[in-house]
Structure formats: C-alpha cells, structure tokens
C-alpha cells in the first residue's frame, strides 16, 4: 500500500518547513530509515528519513518550496501502484491555515531531529543501546538510530552522551578541540572497560575556610542586599582554578578532547522531585555579585520548574554542595560530558595543628570526582591545590 510522506514537525516551534533538498528523485527506491530530504525549519536544516519501503513515486513540494506541518509532500509506493486517490487528497497549492494532522501523520512531540520508528511506530534499539540509554537517563525517543531500519545502536548512544544536546539545547560558550592521543584513547578504553562509561576517581582535600568566611562577612557588610554565600565564593574560585588548569576544564569526546575557554559552572540544586544543575556561564569572567545574583535567580526558577533547557545544559564543570545538610564529606556523580564535579561538605570548626599548636579553624572537606578518561590523578590534584590555595587566601582572586 502506498504511504504518504508529510511535512514532519522537526522542532517544537516549527509551523511550516521548506524543502532544502530532495535526497531521492522520483522513481528511486527508498527504504525505511533512509534519508529522503533535507528540510529547513525555523531553527536548522534537518534530515527527514523515509518511514516506508518502496519507490518514491511522486514529489509534491519542490526544492525551495514550503509546506505547513502535516501536508502531503510526497508519496512512497510500489512501482505500479495506483496513487491517484492519495494524490487527490492533497490540498491544491493552498496550504490550510491551521494544519490538521493527516491520519497516518507521525506524532513527533519531542524537540528531536528525527524520531526513529519502524512502520508500526515501534521504537527499535539494540538491547545494549536500550540498556545504555536507561543507565544514562537518555530518552531513546530523542535519539536518531543509525543502524539498519533506524535501529538505535551503541554508537548513537555514545554520540548522544558525548555531544552537546542538539537544537534548542545550549552549548558551552567556546572551546578548542585537540585530537586525543593514542595513549589517551587507550587509557580511556581501558578505564571504561573497568568502571563504566565514565570512569570516575576521587580526590579529597581539607580546606581552611576562615578567610573566605571573613571575606564573605566583609563583603556582605558593604551592602546588606548583596547576600553573597560561601557557595558563591566557591563557584568563583572553582572558575578561577579551572582557567588556571584548562586540562581540567575539558571533556572526553572519544576521538578528541574538548578544552573549554570559559568555566561554565553547573550548580546542583535540589528540587522537589530530583536534582537539576543550572549553569552559571563564564563564571570566570563574572564578579561575585553577578554570580550570587545569577545563582539565586536560577535556583529560584529551578524550584518552580521554569528553567529553559539551555539554562541547565552545557556546563563544563559542576559543583554540588550538601554542607547545608551537615554532610561532612561525599562523592558526586559526574554529569557527562563534563570532566569533573566538586562535592562540597559542611564548614565546621575543627581542631587543627598550626605552627605546632592545636587551634580551632573553620574546616571544609571537598571531594572532586574526575573523569579519568580526561583527567589523571596528578592533574586533578594540582587543580585541587590551586583551588585550596585561592580559597584559603581569597585575595588571590583580585591579584
């Protein structure tokens, strides 16, 4: 039976699409999952895949022309099949003002480039891909299957995990890619075999917080409205340390390693039904007051679930603070593809030895989770040393 090809919905806001290029001509054989045309949406040029097997019998919308969502743009069928009845259903040039979904219209609702489905509408994925997606919290419906018949396979999941989310989702503010050396790739492969897709390791350090706390008190004294938190200072210091250690402000991308120009810091915020990580963009370039204001505003909107996707994706490094819950020490799970995350414990007075004497200091224990594919032990340790040095002497921020 002949199948209708209709203008698909390829972005959340798309109302009509323009045919940029037909990848098949009339009379060509097509099979399910094969690219059929490139379509310009309001956002990007997207590939449209065939959802049926057969021959491309008729093209109704030529390259450069537009059609509203749901309009018949082509027909796929058997070579000798009568398709007149289908063609007669096509609107005569005049697009309908409000597009009505055709009976067989696929109902794509995600902001996904293309939805992988078989003729029956069933999503197909290899067992491994399905498991990987589940483990990493990916929605299979948002992934384009590159296997036969549109099957989602391992490499599609890996691509989805290592690449910034497409379309409306934000990316980090700037970066350079450098080829991953052979040894780096081997280390990556071995570690992944051992521990999972993101091989974590952990580094813990104690930090004396008296000066940072004092600085916070002094700044807040300048203006009662400022309300800078210790966490804001930590974000600023993390950003500064990341700029000093670009090898930590990086993510592993299989064949290359991406080094970011700026420190886009994800700040873990607990919300009613889970956790979200709004991003403070280019925290290295922002003042403490800017950071404090942004964090407060983002956290507020996170709790009311008003964050836009681009506000909670694309960080280069994250900070998670459970100090307010009295947690002394914990480890945090890296949000791929970021290279690391810093878990901040509570600030508490503790006896320490200074100049051979026991004194009481405000101590805080932080644990850094590192993606071992990109960060090695010594690299992470050096970063933490810098972090500690600045936090213990916040004047470094202005030096």
């Amino acid at each position: 039976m002949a199948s209708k090809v209709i203008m698909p919905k390829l972005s959340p806001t798309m109302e009509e699409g323009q045919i940029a290029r037909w990848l098949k001509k009339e009379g060509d054989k097509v099979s399910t999952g094969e690219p059929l045309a490139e379509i310009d949406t309001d956002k990007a040029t997207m590939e449209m895949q065939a959802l049926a097997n057969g021959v491309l019998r008729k093209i109704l919308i030529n390259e450069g022309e537009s059609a509203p969502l749901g309009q018949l743009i082509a027909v796929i069928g058997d070579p000798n099949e009568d398709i007149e009845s289908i063609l007669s259903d096509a609107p005569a040039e005049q697009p309908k003002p409000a597009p009505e979904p055709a009976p067989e219209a696929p109902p794509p609702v995600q902001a996904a480039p293309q939805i992988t489905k078989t003729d029956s509408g069933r999503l197909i994925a290899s067992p491994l891909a399905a498991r990987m997606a589940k483990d990493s919290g990916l929605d299979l419906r948002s992934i384009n299957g590159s296997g036969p018949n549109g099957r989602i396979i391992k490499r599609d999941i890996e691509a989805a995990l290592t690449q910034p989310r497409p379309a409306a989702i934000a990316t980090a503010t700037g970066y350079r890619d450098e080829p991953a050396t052979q040894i780096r790739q081997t280390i990556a492969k071995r570690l992944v075999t051992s521990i999972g897709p993101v091989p974590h390791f952990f580094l813990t350090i104690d930090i004396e917080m008296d000066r940072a706390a004092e600085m916070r008190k002094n700044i807040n004294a300048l203006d009662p409205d400022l309300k800078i938190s210790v966490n804001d200072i930590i974000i600023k210091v993390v950003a500064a340390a990341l700029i000093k250690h670009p090898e930590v402000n990086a993510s592993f991308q299989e064949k290359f390693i991406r080094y970011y120009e700026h420190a886009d810091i994800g700040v873990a915020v607990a919300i009613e039904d889970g956790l979200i990580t709004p991003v403070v963009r280019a925290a290295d370039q922002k003042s403490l007051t800017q950071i404090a204001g942004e964090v407060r505003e983002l956290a507020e909107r996170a709790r009311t679930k008003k964050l836009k996707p681009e506000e909670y994706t694309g960080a280069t490094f994250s900070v998670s603070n459970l100090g307010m819950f009295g947690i002394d020490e914990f480890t945090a799970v890296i949000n791929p593809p970021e290279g690391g995350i810093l878990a901040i414990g509570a600030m508490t007075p503790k006896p320490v030895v200074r100049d051979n004497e026991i004194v009481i200091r405000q101590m805080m224990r932080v644990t850094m989770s590192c993606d071992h594919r990109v960060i090695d032990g010594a690299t992470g340790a050096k970063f933490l040393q810098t972090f500690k040095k600045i936090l213990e002497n916040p004047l470094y921020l202005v030096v």
Partner: protein
Amino acid sequence: MPTLTIRDALNQAIREELARDEKVFIMGEEVAEYDGAYKVTRGLLKDFGPKRVIDTPITELGFAGLGVGAAMAGLRPIVEFMTFNFSILATDQIVNSAAKMLYMSGGQFNIPIVFRGPGGSAFQVSSQHSQALESWYAHFPGLKVVMPSTAADAKGLLKSAIRDDDPVIFIEQERMYGNKGEVPEDPDFTIPLGVADIKREGTDVTIVARSLMVPVALKAADKLQEQGVSCEVIDPRTIRPLDIGTIVESVKKTNRVVLAEESHPMCSVNAEISHEIMERAFDYLDAPVKRVSGVDVPMPYAKNLEDLVVPDVDRIVAAVREVAYLD
C-alpha cells in the same frame, strides 16, 4: 618447541598414551598394516604390535560396539573412524550405548572411550564424504565432543580425551592434517577439556570459530584489522561441555558476535551458542548474533560449487562488517 603437523601431533598423543597405559589400544579400519588411511597412526603397529593396534573389518557398528563393551570391562579403547561420515553407521552404539550406559546403570558402568577421526569438509569427495556431524553428537548428554584447530591443541586435547573416563567424540578436520604448529614435547602436556581458547584478542567484534573455521577467522581478523576493526577470535575447542562463559565474557566486551562453522545451519552448534548468548548477554548486544554456516545443501563435487559451500574469509569479513554497522 618442535613444529609438527596436526597429523603428527595426534600421532604423538596416541603414541604417548599407548606407552603410558596398557589398557589403551587403538582399533579401526586400516590403522595398523596400512599405517592409517590419513597416516595418523603411522608407525604404531611397528612400535606397539598387533595386540594394541588393531585393523578392523569395515564394520563400524560392530567395532564401535565392541569398543564400548571393552570399555565396560575396563579397557580404554581409541576407536578410529576412517572418516566421521562412517560413524553414522555406528551411532546406535555411540548414542544408545556409550552415551547412556553410566546413567542407565545408575552410575555403575562408565565408558572411557575415544571415537576419533577426520570430519568436516574434505576436498571434492561430494556429499557422503564431506560433512560436519558435531551437532549430532553434541546433542547428547553423556558424550563429550572435542574439535581441535591447532597442532598443540590436537595433542593436548587428545591426550586428555584418552585419559578421560567418559566417551569422547574427537573430530579432526580432514583438510587440516597438514597444518603445522609448535607442540610441547613434555609427555605430561595436556589441555583440559571444556576450556575455550582466545586465539586472538580484540575489542570490536567477537568471532566464535572451531576446527577449520579458526584459521579462516584469524585471516578474516587480519583483514578486518586493516579496515580498523579489532576482532577477538574464540575457539571453544570442546563443543560439549561448552565453555560458554568465555564466549559471553567476550561478547559483553565487544557487544557484537559472529559465529562461524562448517556445518549446516539447522540445529547447529552455533544455533545453540547463539541462544546462549541471547540468554546470557542480551543486554550487551548491539547487533543481532550473526551466523556464518556451511551453505544448506549437500556438498557438491564440482570445485567451484564446493568453494561456495564452505565459509571463507570474505563471508566472515562481510558478517563482521554487518554486525559492526560498517556497510
């Protein structure tokens, strides 16, 4: 280590075991005076005499059953089938007597016997003399089924088979008797039954191959390496009991698997391996398990047709590329 043909490695194994244990004897068609139809038993008559190295009439059911009876009375026979094609005549004694004796006697009569000889495809001998029968024998609890692919494996596994207290079907590949490899000289060198061997390590695709398919798979792996695909080649060596753990571990690592065998696909050993992988490594599969089997036809005589039947490097390469989603 000396380099031997598989034929001579087998000869060495039989020779050492005849010398080691008086209860061991070898019988079969042309094993003695003729020195073996495939020369595996060359020189044994001269060294061990007609009591231990016995020419039989062409009477496969008879001498297979005689061997089982002798095993019931405490001997450790090696029964040579000139080719395994002729073992079909003896299947009543192998299946109904040897395989089941221990069980139906409530554990009283074990059958320490080796049925050995060449099997699999030969060269241009048409349908009755060129076939792979391992799945028949692997079907039955009570039997052990072994198929070596290298000279060292041939020696080590045959010695283990002869020392084993159960009936062992030991299928040598007719085309491989002249293949050479290094073989340990130590008379105590054995390879335990039921242990697979990783013939080549790799990361992208697992190829499970046995007997003749092992060298073919290794060549395919070389070719694929040039194409950027790293293949792990696993030789189960023992078909029953099957070391499925080694195969599953590999598949969990590579996520893709190609199973190569000479035999017909219907109810084949690889059909079973495929099932086991599906059951034990389902969540690790990134592609359907792919089989490369002998073509599902009786073996033809004509060279060009025969070449189409037996899986070759190109078919394995194509299968690997398919599961790796490269084409």
